[in-house]
């Protein structure tokens, strides 16, 4: 059992890291983290769900059981059957196919929102621990002030010039979660910034950028990773919420929020159609949150002794 796991894990690592040209140390660290996650029950659940999500997203690009645009007005709101595994929606289109195609939109949104949030968060975090007291003070106050604006409000404001669009969700989530990230990662970064090794690096003439890259970022990374994985879950929720409000995914683009928004009106009459997208969103968000929790435990050498051995 263990051998098999190791085998598959190392394979994943090879394929994942081959183009990144990382050192063997980094790749073995990754293996250890992945293996540690897999070894926990909830971590296994999270990994399986996330892998399925990725697989379905890719599959939906080339195949869905029914075409998304095969509407049939004579068979709307149909119950699950052999022809339509999860029934049909209000236009007579196949719910299962729409949910499959929705997976890729949600994955796209979650990944981009996280990338954007990560970039913004790291940038702000760096500013907040900057040696220039003017920059750090201003950025701390700015982040504290901006963090009070709800993500939904940002999205609604963005939707005025841009209309309903995937970009609105990504930017709104990116800003909201980026600010959060900077705020949460700051203590870790500050601890590193005030450490002796940073002082000595600086005395050797290291640039501010180099200190951030080589010393501060690696120290804050566990916190950042955990926060980003939680953000990915929130981004999936935000997509559903914003699409329901009409400022998220535009009409015609498959997404779980779209499937929820179009069926929720009829929850009294056709509760099953609301159940499927709701269930998927719940499972994926739980998986992402669990993943974040497990990651927090296994990514830190203090709590994960295995990591100290590599």
């Amino acid at each position: 059992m263990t051998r098999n796991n190791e085998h598959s894990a190392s394979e994943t690592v090879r394929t994942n890291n081959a183009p990144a040209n990382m050192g063997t140390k980094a790749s073995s660290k990754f293996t250890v983290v992945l293996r540690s996650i897999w070894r926990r029950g909830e971590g296994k659940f999270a990994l399986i769900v996330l892998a399925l999500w990725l697989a379905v997203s890719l599959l939906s690009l080339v195949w869905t059981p029914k075409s998304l645009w095969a509407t049939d007005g004579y068979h709307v709101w149909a119950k699950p059957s052999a022809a339509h595994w999860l029934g049909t929606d209000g236009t007579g289109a196949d719910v299962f196919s729409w949910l499959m195609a929705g997976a890729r939109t949600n994955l796209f949104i979650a990944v981009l929102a996280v990338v954007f949030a990560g970039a913004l968060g790291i940038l702000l975090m760096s500013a907040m621990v900057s040696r220039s007291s003017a920059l750090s003070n201003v950025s701390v106050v700015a982040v504290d002030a901006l963090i009070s604006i709800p993500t939904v409000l940002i999205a609604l404001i963005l939707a005025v010039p841009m209309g309903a669009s995937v970009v609105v969700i990504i930017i709104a989530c990116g800003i909201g979660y980026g600010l959060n990230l900077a705020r949460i990662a700051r203590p870790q970064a500050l601890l590193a910034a005030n450490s002796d090794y940073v002082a000595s690096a600086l005395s050797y003439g290291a640039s501010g950028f180099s200190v951030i890259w080589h010393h501060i970022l690696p120290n804050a990374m566990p916190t950042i990773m955990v926060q980003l994985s939680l953000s990915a879950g929130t981004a999936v929720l935000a997509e559903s919420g914003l699409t329901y409000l009409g400022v998220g995914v535009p009409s015609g683009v498959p997404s779980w929020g779209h499937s929820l928004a179009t069926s929720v009106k009829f929850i009294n009459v056709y509760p099953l159609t609301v159940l499927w997208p709701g269930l998927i969103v719940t499972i994926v968000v739980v998986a992402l949150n669990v993943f974040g929790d497990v990651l927090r435990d296994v990514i830190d050498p203090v709590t994960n002794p295995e990591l100290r051995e590599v």
Partner: protein
Amino acid sequence: MPTNSGAYGENDATDKKTTGTAGNETAADNTRSTGANGDAANANGADTAANLGTEANNTASTDETLNAHVKGGSSGNGGKPGNKKKGWIWAVVAVVVVVALIVAFVVVRSNQKASNTAAEGHKADSVTVGLKLAPTNLDIRNQSGSSLDQLLVGNVYEGLVARDSENKVVPGLAKSWEKSANGTSYTFHLNKGMTFSNGDKLDADDVAWSINELMTKHYHDSESLMNFKSVTATDADTVKLDLTAPYDNLLWVLACRPGLVFDKDANYDMKTQAVGSGPYTVAKFVPDDSITLKANPRYWGAHKAKTATIVLRYFADDNAAVNALKSGDVQVLAPVTENLAAPFVKDSAHYRVAAGDDTDKYVLAMNSKGAKTSDVRVRQAIRYAIDHKQLIASRGGADKPLGGPIPSLDPGYEDLTGLYPHNVAKAKALMKEAGYTPDHPLELRLTYANTYGTELGDQLRSQLKPIGIDLKVDVVEFSTWLQDVLKNKDYDLSLVDHNESHDFSQWVNDEYYYNYSNQKVKDYYNQAMAASSDSQRDALLAKAARVVSEDAPADWLFNYRITTAMKTGVSGFPLNLNQTLLPLYNVTYRTSVK
């Protein structure tokens, strides 16, 4: 736009905002009443509460015992049984209080219910009607929106003439009228002994004053009273209205807002109050939430109110509305989305669901001057490609197919669905002729307001795909539609529900967003408006409508019919046209004897 009274757009911009708070309150109400309704639920609730109470007290007494025990070590055992007894008494007291509270709550609730719906087998004193679009104020002379017509015309205010459920003109305050031979002069003979709800007499002076005020102050809809010259009261019971040129639509227009008669001597705030001559008076007005109508004790006419109190409640949220009918908070719901009404259709022992005709036309306008849609072959191909029967089936099946601009309740109706029958092969051929195939599709943009849901856009996209049209659907805010489509005419395809009656004039208006212009249509229309008889007018309008439909400046997806759901025992509720014309005098609610 300014010259056209027929745009849905203009009408309902203000109607749509029923506040979120109202919805929340409703939800809260529902929960409450559901709790009170289900006896079993209550009994359980009471039990649980009682149990909880006992448990809580037991825990407390255990603690006390423990405390006593600890203390007992120093002060002796005497206190222990006494404390236990006390705890037991407290537990009983708590249970009694909780049970009493619940019983009181249930009794109060059921009393309220009883007063609402009266005893079984009796006619209820009060009927509550659930509607959708709420008026923001009561000023029917200035405030646009069909919800005001629905609420006030025929109920609180009365017109010189009225219209019946078939949209035909019938006597109102005037019992009869004559038209001069050249069609430019009308003489109205009023009923005798008419009064307003404040006791003032209603005579020819009030009629003339009301119409003169309308025209001089340009109140809402005054522009639809075309060719107006003068109106005078020749004696107390006779009014003479002169036109500059014949206008066949005059009587129908007078049955709507322009014909309403107000008390020239009364002084009241029209935004919150109403003094009219109708069978009801406005007793209470809560903006965006509810309106209470009470029977007018001074009512003069034949439409005497059969139910003393009618409450109109407005639900912006369809599910909240359905829940209100389920819980008995309302006895009638109009309109209800057909698919949502399914549970009521099934439960025919307690509910009745019926559809009525209306003049709502779901118009898929195709910009006649648009870069891509100016090609008539493209427009015709779209009309051939759309499977109207399927669209209607997916909505529940009550709506009617419509092949042209005039619905069955308007003059000049003719079944034109045969002009462009569903024919994908023909549509493909036309598109090919125009230079497009499924491999080399034409990209078109459909813009419509989010109030209509995303389904129609998705269905049209899928129906137009096989003929070589790549339809991009923009579901936008209503205000965006008004700006982009109605005002700037910047669109390929647009979808809107034109709900007004007698609105054919939009097809002879070059400035309207259709960008449609055809001299032949204008000639027919002008002849129709000057026609000497109704049958001649109808024939001319039918001819004009046929030409419009042939030119394919739009496709008429369907003629929407209103679905109304009500409790069995409700009678006299109008089904036709009830979103613009809702005479309530005949409504009664009789609970059946078990």
